[in-house]
């Protein structure tokens, strides 16, 4: 038995000798290489492919291309399963598995179809109107409704495939590889322009493959093959197949989704499944073609109703008869050629129903011949059928198109081909800020004036003859090349095509009135199940703007973005408003023009490659030592080093105590380091820091605070004077980039006259802090060319020397408040020095410590970090007010007398200890004076840092509290209601350890 009863033995551009097996809804079928899933299903006689979104009505295959609204399937199974795939866009491969969506238990018997019975109760906005109250119950409603709504099923497993990105540049990007696109490519390519041609099909040619008439006396596809061969031979031409241009962005940036391996069962090893192209084109030619549309009439959605051009494509390209007996319903000439091709393919054409009262153009009449009945001035008014079409009812249509005359005539048929006119694909033009204009003759929107460097060609521009498309393309390609700088570009001669003669004008017909007494659904948008009644109701309810109509009814919001439904919807809205279509206008076209998978947008920036990681020179050692890491910007920093058997807190406690009692070392390479040189360096520092730098001696460093122009603290850190005109600035890890940009702004824009050169040297130097009472003893073993005694190298001294054989820099600075040093060596020697320091410190039980211990140590010492430098605190708030020099100008100084910054109630840095000496202070808690006061309880501050101090053996914290320095000894309350915490705290000096600084000067 013939497994493909609707397949012709010959014809088309499929490979009749290569049979491919596939499974649809659990049944095995056969197709041929070159098929789409849709053509193979039609060949096998499968007519019901899906259930509709809202009413669960049976739907078939409506189109042959990307405009398909109905035949959405769940493609593949397992990790590669993909919902909402248009069957018309799936290239058949052996072993393909697809299933219908929106139906349970099956597409033929769908319980959800009960929705149709209650559909009169489901007007637009039904869910909003019905389930609005009580609002609290919405989550429960949503849970049930979500099951009824059909959107396919997302895969539950991780996507196993690769997705790539690539940037591309060209002189001319040509979107579409049909007659106009290929012509444009020839013209621009011959001019020598660098061009990219993207076509969404597996082969170039578009309608030339099977639908168009002869060119230069040979089949059109031969002309296409020659054109492709010529383009392929041009070194500056890139042809991209299976590539949909889905976004037209600013400054001629366009995005393409290339389906590299979707036509294979699975990608080859290392082959991406899809690739996102981000193209910058000097000029663009939009040869995106046109989409045929249907009419609105009763039951216009049954399986078996199909665009005339689609049925023609199935016949000519795939050798598939989309039915046995068909009726063609049209308002224009294009369907005549389709009818003739269908007849030639062996489909019985019962009649051509032409809404126009007069005759078609001569070419159309000739194509149809004499053997097929033609009814002029008639329309299909209703259809019949159970699961699929069995007959249509036809009646005469009056002149204005709003009432029927005469009696109904019935034609038995299983295929109704509809052609309600053509919509040029203006979407990309509109995304590029162009404004499509309505063309009365075509009853369609055509491209308006261009804003970006683009032009449309061929049927995308409203040119519908083959000769016209070729000529249009040639001209557009040459013009684009000229605009891109190839001034000598010439328009190549247009090849000879058959004279198609003058087409008879189309009749703008959108909606056919139903026969008297028949109350059936008349769909405007097949994918979102929006009917004419829905649009009319929305208009009566006041949704008169097309943008509001769209959101209220969901017209055009499906995956097809209303390709076939939008313009009829506008027409229906216009009529119910008593307005013209141009007055109603279109909705805004936005990317993506076609569905794009999230994976393609993500590319390889997933998992391990989600974002780059910055590692210090000692990272490998930290890893080997079992460090836990914490991100600091893009850096990964060791958080703590747990020994076997140790818990997190054990490790942190041990590391903290080691620094206070013996010695520890810490990787501080992530701190920003900026090399400053030039004769005006000191002056520059004077201007960017609040404190004075003129008197800093060589070999000394100083703590500095810098402000933003509004007087708020930007960053802090130490800056060392290495030589007369050579300084090294350090910044916090978090602000390194911002500070660099800030300094560059002032040097390049505001003070270009200063002789100062700055460069980030963060990456050049590995930086290791050595802290604790034994640190000097360790240091003595590392260097023999620096006198590290307290006398020779006092606190805030800086020396250059050799450490474990490596030349580097030594800074006597302390973050922990202990006797401490920081050693910098070129990063290539960082790990060597680290290991040498561990060796040198062995007898003092030298202990590597991470950011947790570092955080505790600095909190004990009252040093501020991100929680306190939070973009809201001034230098005075943090206790640095007296550092600010009155003798010089500096960035932000002019703002310091603003009333808001001098308010005596500003929040100031204070220390906090629990009043009971033992309860932990909740981080981020709000501080109040009276915890029992009625809400809203005035919050006078917040806890910015909190920890348990192993050295004080009590919880401590830092906070910023209104007029905090005047509250020493006061008891306040730290409240964290979300965590149910309430802790009485005593306000103290923020320096908990060694407030006199004796240790760090020891």
């Amino acid at each position, binding site marked *: 038995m013939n497994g493909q009863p609707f397949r012709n033995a010959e014809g088309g551009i499929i490979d009749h000798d290569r049979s491919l097996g596939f499974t649809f809804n659990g049944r095995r079928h056969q197709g041929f290489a070159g098929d789409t899933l849709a053509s193979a299903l039609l060949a096998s006689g499968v007519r019901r492919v899906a259930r509709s979104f809202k009413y669960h009505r049976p739907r078939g295959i409506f189109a042959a291309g990307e405009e398909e609204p109905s035949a959405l399937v769940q493609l593949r199974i397992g990790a590669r399963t993909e919902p909402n795939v248009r069957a018309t866009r799936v290239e058949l491969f052996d072993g393909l598995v697809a299933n219908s969506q929106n139906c349970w238990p099956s597409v033929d018997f769908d319980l959800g179809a009960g929705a149709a019975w209650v559909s009169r109760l489901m007007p637009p906005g039904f869910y909003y109107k019905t389930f609005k109250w009580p609002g609290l119950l919405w989550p429960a409603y949503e849970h049930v409704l979500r099951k009824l709504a059909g959107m396919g099923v997302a895969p539950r497993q991780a996507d196993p495939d*690769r997705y*790539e*990105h*690539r*940037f*591309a*540049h060209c002189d001319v990007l040509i979107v579409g590889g049909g007659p106009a696109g290929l012509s444009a490519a020839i013209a621009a390519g011959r001019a020598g322009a*660098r061009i990219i041609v993207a076509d969404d099909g597996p082969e170039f040619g578009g309608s030339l493959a099977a639908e168009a008439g002869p060119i230069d006396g040979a089949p059109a596809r031969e002309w296409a093959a020659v054109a492709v061969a010529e383009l392929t031979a041009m070194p500056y031409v890139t042809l991209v197949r299976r590539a949909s241009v889905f976004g037209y962005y600013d400054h001629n940036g366009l995005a393409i989704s290339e389906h590299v391996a979707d036509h294979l069962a699975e990608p*080859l*090893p*290392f*082959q*991406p499944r899809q690739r996102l192209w*981000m193209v*910058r084109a000097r000029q663009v030619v939009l040869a995106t073609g046109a989409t045929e549309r249907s009419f609105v009439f009763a039951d216009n959605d049954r399986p078996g109703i199909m665009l005339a051009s689609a049925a023609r494509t199935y016949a000519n390209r795939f050798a598939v008869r989309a039915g046995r007996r068909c009726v063609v319903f049209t308002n224009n000439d294009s369907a005549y050629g389709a009818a003739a091709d269908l007849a030639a393919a062996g489909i019985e054409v019962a009649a051509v129903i032409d809404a126009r009262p007069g005759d078609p153009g001569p070419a159309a009449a000739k194509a149809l011949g004499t053997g097929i009945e033609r009814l002029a001035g008639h329309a299909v008014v209703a259809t019949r059928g159970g699961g699929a079409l069995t007959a249509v009812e036809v009646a005469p249509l009056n002149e204005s198109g709003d009432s029927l005359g005469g009696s109904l005539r019935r034609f038995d048929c299983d295929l109704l081909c509809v052609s309600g006119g053509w919509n040029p694909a203006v979407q990309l033009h509109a995304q590029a800020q162009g404004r499509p204009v309505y063309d009365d003759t075509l009853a369609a929107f055509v491209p308006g004036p261009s804003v970006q460097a683009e032009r449309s060609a061929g049927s995308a521009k409203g040119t519908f003859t083959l000769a016209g498309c070729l000529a249009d393309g040639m001209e557009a390609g040459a013009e684009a090349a000229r605009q891109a700088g190839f001034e000598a570009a010439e328009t190549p001669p247009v090849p000879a095509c058959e004279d198609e003669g003058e087409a008879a004008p189309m009749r703008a017909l959108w909606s056919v009135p139903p026969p008297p007494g028949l109350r059936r659904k008349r769909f405007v948008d097949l994918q979102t199940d929006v009917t004419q009644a829905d649009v009319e109701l929305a208009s009566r309810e006041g949704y008169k703007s097309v943008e509001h109509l769209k959101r209220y009814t969901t017209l055009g919001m499906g995956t097809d973005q209303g390709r076939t439904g939008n313009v009829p919807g506008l027409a229906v809205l216009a009529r119910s408003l008593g307005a013209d279509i141009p007055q109603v206008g279109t909705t805004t076209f936005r990317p993506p023009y076609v569905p794009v998978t999230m994976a393609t947008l993500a590319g*390889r*920036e997933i998992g*391990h*490659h989600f*974002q*780059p*990681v*910055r*590692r*210090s*020179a000692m990272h*490998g050692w930290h890893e080997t030592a079992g460090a836990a890491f914490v991100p600091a910007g*893009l*850096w990964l920093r060791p958080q703590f080093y747990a020994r076997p058997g140790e818990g997190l807190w054990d490790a942190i406690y041990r590391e903290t105590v080691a620094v206070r009692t013996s010695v520890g070392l810490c990787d501080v390479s992530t701190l920003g380091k900026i*090399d400053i*040189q*030039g*004769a005006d360096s000191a002056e520059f520092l004077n201007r960017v820091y609040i404190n004075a730098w003129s008197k800093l001696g060589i070999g000394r460093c100083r703590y500095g605070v810098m402000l933003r122009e509004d007087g708020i603290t930007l960053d802090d850190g130490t800056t060392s004077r290495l030589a007369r005109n050579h300084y090294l600035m350090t910044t916090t890890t978090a602000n390194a980039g911002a500070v660099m940009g800030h300094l560059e702004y002032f040097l390049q824009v505001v003070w270009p006259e200063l*002789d100062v*050169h700055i*460069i980030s*040297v*963060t*990456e*050049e*130097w*590995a930086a290791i802090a050595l802290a604790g009472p034994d640190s000097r003893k360790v240091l003595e073993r590392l260097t*023999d060319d620096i006198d590290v005694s307290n006398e020779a190298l006092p606190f805030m001294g800086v020396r250059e020397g*050799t450490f*474990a*054989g*490596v*030349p580097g820099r030594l800074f006597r600075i302390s973050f922990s408040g202990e006797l401490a040093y920081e050693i910098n060596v*070129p*990063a*290539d*020697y*960082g*790990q*060597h020095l680290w290991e040498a320091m561990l060796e040198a410190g062995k007898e003092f039980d030298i202990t590597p410590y991470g950011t947790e211990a570092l955080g505790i140590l600095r909190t004990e010492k009252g040093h501020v970090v991100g929680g306190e430098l939070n973009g809201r605190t001034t230098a005075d708030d943090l206790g640095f007010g007296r550092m600010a020099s009155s003798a010089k100008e500096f960035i932000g100084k002019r703002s310091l007398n603003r009333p808001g910054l001098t308010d005596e109630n500003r929040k100031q840095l204070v220390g906090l200890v629990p009043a009971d000496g033992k309860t932990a202070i909740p981080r981020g808690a709000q501080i109040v004076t009276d915890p029992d006061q009625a809400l809203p309880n005035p919050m006078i501050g917040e806890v910015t840092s909190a920890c348990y101090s192993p050295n004080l053996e009590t919880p401590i914290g830092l906070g910023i509290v209104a007029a905090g320095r005047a509250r020493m000894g006061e008891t306040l309350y730290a409240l964290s209601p979300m965590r149910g915490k309430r802790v009485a705290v005593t306000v103290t000096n923020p320096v908990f350890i060694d407030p006199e600084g004796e240790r760090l000067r020891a």
Partner: protein
Amino acid sequence: MPEMPQRCSALFDAYQTGTFGAVPEDGPGIQLAERRGLAIIHLAGPGGDENFRTAVKGCLGCEAPVIPNTTATADGRCLLWLAPTRWLLVSARDAPGDLERDLSAALASHSGAVTDVSSGRTVIRVTGRDARQLLAKGCPLDFHGSRFKPENCAQSILGAINVLLHATGDGTAIDLYCARGFALSMWEWLTDAAGEFGYSIDVAIQG
């Protein structure tokens, strides 16, 4: 006094020579190799000042290019344009410290700054017929031969990492300079992206 130890590359642990990915019949489309042991010096100064440029040339034998995104090579030393007042000096034949000292001395009487950044940069050489395709996966530069020409350089972004690219020699080899801290991420990005073309990791180039 202990011996000066060997410099340790940021890629030391990850570097494994061999052939990987989907290698076509005519061999891998990409060759990757790290350049090690280079002296890399950041030079800043008034590019428009003839005396400054003369002093630079006198010391290095090599002009500081004034045309943006171009390089000048002489005698094993290369100066890459970074900004109107900044260049990167790369030498395979000098020790970093010596070069920094010599150049500083030569520019002592000029406005300018010489900063050794040899440890702070990792240099990866990408060659092979698909080299530019590989880079176009993550770098928005126009890699067409007419735009990114031999001895051009450019600073851009590759896979979210700031990078300096240099089309060395006849332009078939492209050297990538990135911050040391990002070197391993860049290496992982490159080797992952190169799988599609097939790639080899060659013995690191000394110099």
